[in-house]
């Protein structure tokens, strides 16, 4: 009986899974999966975009960037060369100023100026410095007296 009974039970067909569940369950599973997936995709897309922009900027115009770099090298070289040439100029000026001829000429000009204008000590400054203000009460008295 046991074998027959078991076979009888085994022959009983189980209920089929409701067909509507397939899309619902797989839809929920797909929604759960992309959360992780899209984050990865988004970050990788972002990196890919940056890579594409950089490659667009640099790779196709390699000759252009090389030329630009060469121009900058020339500019810097010229700048350094110009700085080297101009460096002695202030020293030469200083040497000229301190030369005896120049000093003599300067002395003559100063003498001539002194003859024309007079010595600075002969002309006291015309500008009078105002005394520091006193107390407010004294200032009023002064104003009334005037």
């Amino acid at each position, binding site marked *: *009986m*046991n074998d*027959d*009974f*078991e076979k*009888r*039970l*085994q022959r*009983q*067909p*189980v*209920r*089929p*899974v409701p067909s509507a*569940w*397939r899309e*619902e*369950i*797989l839809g*929920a*599973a*797909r929604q*759960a*999966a992309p959360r*992780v*997936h899209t984050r990865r995709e988004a970050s990788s897309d972002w990196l890919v975009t940056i890579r594409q922009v950089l490659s667009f900027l640099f790779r196709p115009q390699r000759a252009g960037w090389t030329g630009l770099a060469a121009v900058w090298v020339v500019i810097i070289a010229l700048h350094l060369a110009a700085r080297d040439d101009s460096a002695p100029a202030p020293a030469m000026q200083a040497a000229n100023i301190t030369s005896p001829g120049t000093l003599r000429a300067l002395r003559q000009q100063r003498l001539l100026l002194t003859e024309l204008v007079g010595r600075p000590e002969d002309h006291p400054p015309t500008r009078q410095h105002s005394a520091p203000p006193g107390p407010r009460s004294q200032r009023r008295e002064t104003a009334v007296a005037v």
Partner: protein
Amino acid sequence: MAADLERLYDEHAQALFAFLLNFTRDEADTRDVLQDVFVKLARQPERLAAVRDERGFLLRLAHNAAIDLMRRRGARDRKHEQFGTEQLPAFARTDDPDEAAFRAELSAALGELPADQRAVVHLKLWEGLTFEQIAAALEIPLNTAASRYRYGLDKLRDRLRPLYDEIK
């Protein structure tokens, strides 16, 4: 991965559904657990990478998910054994009145079994698994699987004997 999920569903959803329906005795719980299984697979597709027996692995996943669901629902957990007594149509409909009566009685008798015996009986009778496979799927010792089956089948026989003898 989406195509893989669809393949998994088409190949295993029926078996998982029947097992979960018999185990939980509740259609809404069955759907929740089945969805939980596929969501887990979608989130962690690598879990299937080293699996040899997909059906056994999915049954284990479904069994664990069903137990987790019952534990989460503390109050309903206690009522879980009562689910078994409900008249849940676990088998396909038929126009034959004798068969319909037998299936109804069989559903009711399965509902009266403890859930752990019901799980073993279902996997043995309707999934055709060996005791080794059942033990692996339910994560129980082999002897426990065999004894649960024996006790469960004896109870079903006692319960269904009058009807079985009548329609045999």
